[in-house]
């Protein structure tokens, strides 16, 4: 196991950190480790693929944070290995952690 994988989760899995506003979909879990099958010759999974797998595990979660046109909703931020994700096509490199955040929203 690499150091990166040891820190972030099992090799071949993508850890997704779940904010409080979405834990009704995860039975209260603040982290979901997703095993994503990667076909031989394919590169890293995309953020969209990870969210797709997350929605299979936690039905309904994806639509609360991504609209029907594939756009990240206005008050949601997604970080991949600490970098802000602006496009669901962005790759999730090996060992990276996906962090979902409910950003600023008015009263």
């Amino acid at each position, binding site marked *: 196991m690499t150091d990166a994988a040891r820190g972030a989760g099992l090799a071949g899995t993508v850890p997704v950190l779940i904010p409080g506003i979405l834990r009704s979909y995860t039975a209260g879990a603040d982290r979901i480790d997703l095993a994503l099958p990667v076909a031989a010759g394919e590169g890293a999974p995309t953020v969209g693929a990870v969210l797709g797998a997350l929605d299979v595990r936690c039905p309904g979660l994806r639509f609360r944070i991504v609209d029907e046109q594939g756009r990240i*909703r206005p008050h*949601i931020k997604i970080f991949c290995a600490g970098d802000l994700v602006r496009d669901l096509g962005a790759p999730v490199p090996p060992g990276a952690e996906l962090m979902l955040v409910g950003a600023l929203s008015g009263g």
Partner: protein
Amino acid sequence: MPDATKGRPTRRGTGGVRLLIATRKGLWTLTGDAARRSWKLAGPHFLGHIVHHAVADPRDGRTILAAARTGHLGPTIFRSGDRGRTWREAAVPPAFAPGSGRSVDHTFWLTPGHASEAGTWYAGTSPQGLFRSTDGGATWTGVEGFNGHPQRKAWCGGDQDGTPDGAKLHSILVDPRDPKHLYIGMSSGGIFESVDGGADWRPLNAGVSANFMPDPDPEFGHDPHCVRLHPEQPDRLYHQNHCGIYRLDRPERRWLDIGAAMPKSVGAIGFPLVLHPHDPDTLWVFPMDGSDVWPRVSPGGKPAVYRSTNGGRSWQRQATGLPAAQAWWTVKRQAMTADQKPTVGVYFGTTSGELWASRDEGRTWRCLARHLPHIYAVEVG
């Protein structure tokens, strides 16, 4: 058309009354005894969720749907099959077609379908979209006859052209004689009618003022706030508009301005309009100040309901029990309703979180709840 008596059942039972109070911070219920004297507040359900509308299904007496979103999260529908004890989320909430470029910001309005179509519901969204469920609200599909209509964009304008809280499709009405005969209202866009189950639509706005448009009498582009169809006389419609109050008796297609009979000092501007369930000539409105910059509060800070018992030819002020001064209330379009009792109870909720009730058809008023969040909708259920 089939017999009107086969339409949605009216409930004149001797039991109590329960109100579903949808607010900006969750859903509450307020349950009254048979005399409507003693009331008990319960909740919240979905604390922190913005609940735009919660509606009970009169066809089965058990199902409730609630349209919700939060400040961060996208829109969804919650469903209860046991009068609100337990809830499940819709598997497929209302959403526009992929590739359309449009996304639902929130579901604003819910309407149970025709009595002959158990499990069918309609939803209106912001921006303007029409959706249908045939499985009790579990999965929703767009009514493409409207959402994909070649004229839709002309009717609605851009998705940003609408009320300050977003353009809305509301007032989805189903003719109790014919499940294929539908009406919708849009802010903005106007009132539209379909006679083929939503496959095609045409404007129904003749006679309605649109004084915010270059052409004051356009075919569409109006701002109806709340449209109602009388359940026992479905050819009679009323609506509270941005520019006044109107009545339409089908097959006539030109609305009659019945707001003109309101006192000039009060005006004919407001959001909700409520019908007497058994008397097509009786209705209630809650006027708000529509002068200069549109304060949208009770005129002069003196709230009053206005009732007409003759189809809008004249109006009577009903304010006994309401504050006499310094009450700057706003009542939103879904936040006023009536029960089905022989002497009808009328209810409204304010954006300042008060729930007021009259159990004598508006003659006297009493506050049933205070300190709730901003109230969006009040429905009997």
